């Protein structure tokens, strides 16, 4: 690597870190260096949306690990979230465990449920396996519902305030500085897993299971391991989600919730960890941005503006649906694939102007 490109790389990395550190200040003060910014200049975004995005990123990363890397399609990710939320309700709300212990217990139970959910993968393949994760989803959500009605009520399960020893997570900014390192850690950890021997075996398994077995690798064990890791991360995300919202009901974890993660990794790029991040960001932030633009449509009360304002939620869905279809047709590798292409072009241009 040449010196100048290394310089640029480091420069960009430092700039990125600075932006990430400044973001919560920007979004809570809503001004930059004393200059006040309008709502639309901030794209109608608040820090809460960013935090929810970070939590969703954990889910998208873990699903992309399972589906994109290990080749196991699962529509059970909402169930792992629900598992995490329920474990958090038992250990956190009922037993009063400290927040870090709650997260650890969520991860442990999540891994266990993941292994159980992965067991059918030893016998069935493809669509049949997808259906088994579907069934698992309903079982877990049913259990959550029964639990909720037995110990709490229709209003939902309340969660205590999260705190890490004396650091109380009572503002979005504080949450941000807990969630961001977690996403970075998970991203970095999964990335390292993939370049290990085991990760390579997993990618091979996605390409050809039979050939992987006859290459001397126990694919059944590998599959269960992938499931355990992925669901542990998702369960932690579920616990974080519940604590962040301070109150959740079983209805939060519907099948729509599971499918949104699939949408994220398709938009972002199947099999790309950074794609999962981009997909989650788009999924969580774009609706708010579109809503912002729709509200901006003018105050004349014209037909166009009325249509926009009245149909905001439908508009968001239509734009999303179109985006997914366009991506599937023109960029089957997702946004990550487009990014790679641009990068290749750029590097080629850089080297041979």
């Amino acid at each position, binding site marked *: 690597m040449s010196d100048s490109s290394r310089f640029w790389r480091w420069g960009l990395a430092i700039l990125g870190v600075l932006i990430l550190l400044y973001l919560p200040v920007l979004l809570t003060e809503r001004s930059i260096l004393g200059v006040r910014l309008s709502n639309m200049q901030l794209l109608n975004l608040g820090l809460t949306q960013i935090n929810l995005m970070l939590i969703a990123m954990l889910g998208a990363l873990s699903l992309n690990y399972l589906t994109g890397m290990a080749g196991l399609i699962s529509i059970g990710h909402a169930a792992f979230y629900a598992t995490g939320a329920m474990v958090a309700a038992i250990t956190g709300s009922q037993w009063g465990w400290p927040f870090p212990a709650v997260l650890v217990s969520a991860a442990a139970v999540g891994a266990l449920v993941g292994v159980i959910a992965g067991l059918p993968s030893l016998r069935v393949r493809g669509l049949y396996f997808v259906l088994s994760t579907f069934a698992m989803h309903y079982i877990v959500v049913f259990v959550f519902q029964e639990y909720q009605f037995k110990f709490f009520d229709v209003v939902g399960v309340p969660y205590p305030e999260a705190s890490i020893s004396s650091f109380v997570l009572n503002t979005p900014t504080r949450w941000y500085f807990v969630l961001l390192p977690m996403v970075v850690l998970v991203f970095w950890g999964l990335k390292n897993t993939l370049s290990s*021997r085991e990760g*390579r075996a997993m990618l091979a398994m996605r*390409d*050809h299971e039979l050939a992987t*077995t*006859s290459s*001397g690798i126990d694919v059944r064990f590998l599959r269960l391991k992938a499931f355990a890791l992925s669901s542990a991360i998702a369960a932690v995300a579920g616990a974080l989600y519940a604590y962040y919202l301070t109150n959740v009901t079983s209805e939060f974890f519907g099948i729509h919730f599971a499918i949104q993660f699939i949408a994220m990794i398709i938009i972002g790029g199947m099999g790309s960890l950074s794609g999962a991040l981009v997909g989650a960001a788009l999924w969580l932030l774009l609706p708010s941005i579109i809503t912002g633009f729709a509200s901006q449509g003018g105050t004349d009360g014209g037909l166009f503006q009325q249509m926009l304002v009245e149909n905001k939620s439908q508009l968001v869905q239509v734009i999303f649906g179109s985006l997914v279809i366009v991506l599937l047709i023109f960029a089957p590798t997702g946004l990550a694939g487009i990014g790679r292409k641009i990068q290749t072009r750029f590097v080629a241009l850089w080297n041979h102007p």
Partner: protein
Amino acid sequence: MLHTDHLSVAYARKGLALDDVSLSVPAGGIVALLGANGAGKTTLIRAVSGLLPLHHGKILQGMVKLDGHDVTHMSPYQLVSAGMAQVPEGRLVFKQLSVKDNLLVTAAKLPRAQVQERLDAVYALFPQLLERSTQAAGWLSGGEQQMVALGRALILQPRLLLVDELSLGLAPLIVKSIYDQLLVVGETLGSAMLIVEQNARLALKFASSAYVLDRGRITFSGTAQEVANSDQVKESYLGSAKPESARQE
């Protein structure tokens, strides 16, 4: 080194795919397994390498022995540890992984210190793979993919190599050069080989002995010379001068 003992295999709700098949591959020997489509050649490879359950097949009787030990119901990955490696039919390279990663997948069981040395040995055997080491294996030509599949097996330096339809869809010249490399491997590593091949003429050139399978049964066996000279083999697989009508039973 490898023996199958009165082996009978059936797939779910179908008749016998292998019927009382006994064959043996001596240590360091190259044995060809000949037969028409559907004769049971691939089934035999699956039975020996433990892949049968993945294809819903079942061993009804008999056993597979490796170095005198019963390995009939061992899983494929355990068999690899026992010294068996396989070049599957249709190559089955990991298309999205680079050539090097393809080789490293199987190398996962080796001690880390040994990996580079073994990798170099494979590259020495197939220099094209070194040139293409960072390319995705799916982008390679058929011949190169076959080299990847072979390299993936050879990096383990197996004591027994199973090769299924190496010539499938490849130009004769490439097939010949790959077989030549296999002979080199056989001589340097002393690996025994069981070679399944539709191209009987080619296989008999490289093998020391051969078995002929027909509808699940072994109908002829002997040294490569004997098999090549047998009327039955000549008639069915090598193409004799007899008129079409005479071939029918």
